[in-house]
């Protein structure tokens, strides 16, 4: 009742009801089906499945590469957004459009293209190879693929905030005697931080579930470059639906907790301002 009074527009009940049904059909029911399937294993087998050495190695690979890729995207996504908002240069529209390409490209195509470029006889890979860096078919390859697919998130979340940021605030800071670094670190950055965190969380979540592009570039070696989604598909190939669901549940829970933490961090950084 209280909620209802807040809005001047009618239709809260209808909208709320629709939202609940919509989310149930699309998200909640499939997810509970997943959990239900996993419970058919019984606790012992569930535990054995999710703590198998190969599974643990796969969690490590997936989470570390996703974290690294999201971090890279947070740093360089900020830079790209900055350039796109603060400078005018010929072809700016084009560059702006390029940012969204990783969204549009089928991930398998991205994976094959990146593998082509970064394998030891590829255009880029051959030079990396000469200095002793193995890019494709190594964890680095996974990071490259995940960075590619996560690129738009930080750029697109930071861009609007940066556009709203008044140049006058910066000028005020400067005229009050702040150095350039102080202006950035104490005026601009705190304003952008919530947006950066959102972009980071999105990129990270996207990377955790990515399968299509990674399987081409990873090399898929058990214990080394095998990601959890691949392990899940492998289980499906063996008709082990329950085992696959068990691993998926672990991914879900861990991702949920991590996203929650990032959300709290974001709240905290917003409140601090």
């Amino acid at each position, binding site marked *: 009742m209280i909620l209802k009074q807040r809005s001047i527009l009618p239709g809260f009940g209808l909208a709320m009801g629709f939202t609940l049904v919509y989310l149930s059909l699309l998200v909640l029911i499939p997810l509970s089906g997943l959990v239900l399937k996993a419970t058919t294993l019984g606790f012992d087998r569930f535990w054995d499945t999710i703590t*198998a*050495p*190969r599974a643990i*190695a796969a969690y490590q690979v997936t989470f570390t590469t996703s974290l690294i890729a999201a971090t890279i995207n947070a740093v360089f996504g900020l830079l790209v957004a900055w350039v796109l908002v603060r400078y005018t240069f010929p072809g700016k529209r084009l560059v702006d459009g390029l940012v969204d390409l990783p969204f549009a490209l089928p991930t398998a195509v991205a994976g094959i293209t990146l*593998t*082509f470029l970064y*394998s*030891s*006889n*590829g255009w880029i890979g051959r030079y990396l190879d000469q200095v002793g860096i193995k890019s*494709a*078919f190594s964890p680095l390859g996974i990071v490259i693929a995940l960075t590619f697919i996560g690129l738009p998130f930080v750029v697109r979340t930071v861009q609007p905030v940066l556009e709203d940021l008044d140049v006058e605030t910066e000028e005020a800071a400067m005229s009050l005697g702040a150095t350039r670094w102080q202006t950035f670190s104490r005026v601009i950055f705190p304003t952008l931080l919530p947006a950066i965190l959102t972009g980071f969380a999105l990129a990270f979540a996207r990377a955790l579930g990515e399968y299509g592009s990674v*399987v*081409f570039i990873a*090399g*898929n*070696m*058990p*214990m080394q470059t095998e990601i959890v989604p*691949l392990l899940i*598909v*492998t*289980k*499906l*190939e*063996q*008709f*082990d639906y329950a*085992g696959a669901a068990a691993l998926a549940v672990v991914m879900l829970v861990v991702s949920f907790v991590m996203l929650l933490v990032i959300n709290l961090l974001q709240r905290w950084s917003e409140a601090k301002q």
Partner: protein
Amino acid sequence: MRGLLRSHLARSLSMLVLVGVIGACAQPTGSSPGSGQAAKPAVNILNVSYDPTRELYQDFNKAFAQYWKQKESQDVTVRQSHGGSGAQARAVIDGLEADVVTLALGYDVDALNIQGKLVPDDWEKRLQSNSAPYTSTIVFLVRKGNPKNIKDWDDLVKPGVAVITPNPKTSGGARWNYLAAWGYALRKNGGDEAKAKEFVTQLFKNVPVLDSGARGSTTTFVERGQGDVLLSWENEAFLAINDLGPDKFELVVPSISILAEPSVAVVDKVVDKRGTRTVAEAYLQYLYTEEGQRIAAKHYYRPRIETVAAEYKDRFPQIALFTLAEVFGDWRQTQKTHFDDGGTFDQIYQPDR
């Protein structure tokens, strides 16, 4: 979603095939079936197969449609669907309505029996030669000039040799690779399973990339330039040499390999529901005729019939072959021992070495 996509794919493929069939029928044949006799309604069946058979079945379906038109004066369209053998089997279990399956190995047809009772227990005995109308084997593909001098299985475990093979857990072809290596080591060591396991472990330590399917591995080896030797289906190896460059790759035939028997079966549950049993059975039987065998041989699958095999003798290298039954028993047992979770393949990658 997957099923939808697949059936969409199958539909567009079938359109292609249909166009081919119409083209073939449009030719004046002279022996048109009796025009007084009422034509039977057209029928279509779906053949769910694995990756490398695409070209084989394109040819075969045309030939079968012609044959069936002449024999039964009925138009038949065979739609094709291709993908990794295990994934294809799963699609059928999950409801893809395949009238016939033509998969890479018996275990994938067994899965249709175990998971959904789509085929009876004795499916393998219903057709001649264990329901495998054509066979293949596992050979080595090396780079031109064979720089690492790879001649036989023993050369694959030498330090510094990089071997490309797909993951046996996801690829049918890779299971044959694995079993071929295991069988070789068993023979060499007088049946010592521990020695065989050691050999295969050594071999997989030389594998830098594990793709999920046979085509993926071929790409990794051929296009990405990874590895010194590719373990491959014989027909894939020929295809790679013919299509991608006879000046770049060479075929190496090991001293001994496995007789790979890709299995075919009518999916009883589907044909009974759709009323297509007669045509589906005839379709598979046609694979065993001289015409069917010739088409298989043309696509580098080894024919079963002696006369056709003699015709195409020069096409296939001489090689000593052992069968799955001789060395490993049946597929269910083999799958359990080697490829299920905790099997010998998993043990290779156990960390505590």
